């Protein structure tokens, strides 16, 4: 049973990741990305990290993908065609080559370095309370830094998107 689930989820992740990069319309690409991220959340569930999977879905699929979709809808020419000037061919082949080499190298290195048989318990769910307790005690500094990051993101993002009155373009408002 978990075998089927794992195979199906990994197939979903890989196929929709490729679709996200190769789909002609950028909107479809974003949908593909959403499915890929949902697949990753499914893998988290298989690994026993349910809360993390929910975190992944609500933050990535529920928030980041929405922002991506909205930005794609803003970043277009009036003609309705998505801005996309791909040139397949040399660059694509080079990309495949580089990516394959890197992936092989990483997989090989990790597989060689990791002991072949790890004794993992068959069933395991992350104890939720323990997660929160750790976050509040051992990771307190990380949490404070996260708070700073949050503040910086808000202020930075708002300042970036803000348009001064004189240089605002016709399409950008309303």
């Amino acid at each position, binding site marked *: 049973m*978990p*075998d089927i689930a794992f195979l199906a989820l*990994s197939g979903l*992740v*890989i196929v929709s*990741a490729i679709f*996200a*990069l190769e789909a002609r319309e*950028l909107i479809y*690409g*974003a949908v593909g*990305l959403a499915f890929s*991220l949902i697949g990753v959340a499914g*893998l*988290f569930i*298989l*690994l*026993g*990290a349910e809360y*993390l999977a929910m975190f*992944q879905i609500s*933050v*990535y699929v529920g928030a*980041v993908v929405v*922002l*991506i979709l909205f930005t*794609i809808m803003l*970043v277009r020419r009036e003609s309705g065609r998505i*801005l*996309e*000037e*791909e040139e397949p061919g040399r*660059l694509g082949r080079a*990309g*495949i080559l*580089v*990516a*394959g080499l*890197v*992936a*092989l190298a990483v*997989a090989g290195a*990790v*597989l060689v370095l*990791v002991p072949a048989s*790890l004794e*993992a318990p*068959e069933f395991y769910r*992350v104890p939720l309370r*323990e*997660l929160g307790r750790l*976050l509040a005690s*051992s*990771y307190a500094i990380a949490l404070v830094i*996260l708070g700073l*990051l949050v503040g910086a993101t808000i202020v930075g*993002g708002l300042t*970036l*998107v803000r348009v001064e009155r004189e240089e605002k*373009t016709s399409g950008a408002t309303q």
Partner: protein
Amino acid sequence: MEPLSSYIILSSALLGIGIYGLVSKRNAIRLLFSVELIVNAANINFVAFARYANPPMLTGWNIVFFSIAAAAMEATVGLALILVAFRLNGTIDVRKLNRLRG
């Protein structure tokens, strides 16, 4: 229960796809997709290794917490940057965004 190696192979494949996108795509939003895929490949590895330790380590999960949070912030600012670049230049093709002045 899957062996750990299958998760590693999967995440390496995802990493490969992400790097392929980074190398060969020219649209800034697609580059952002690639970055997200790479981050997710790393997250899969974190969770898998945390799960396969005996006893399972919560550290891996906590790191993924912060990783997802940081990636979300990164995507937010990245998209805002793309929007500004589009507004100033009328394109989000990274080859054409080679002016350093606003």
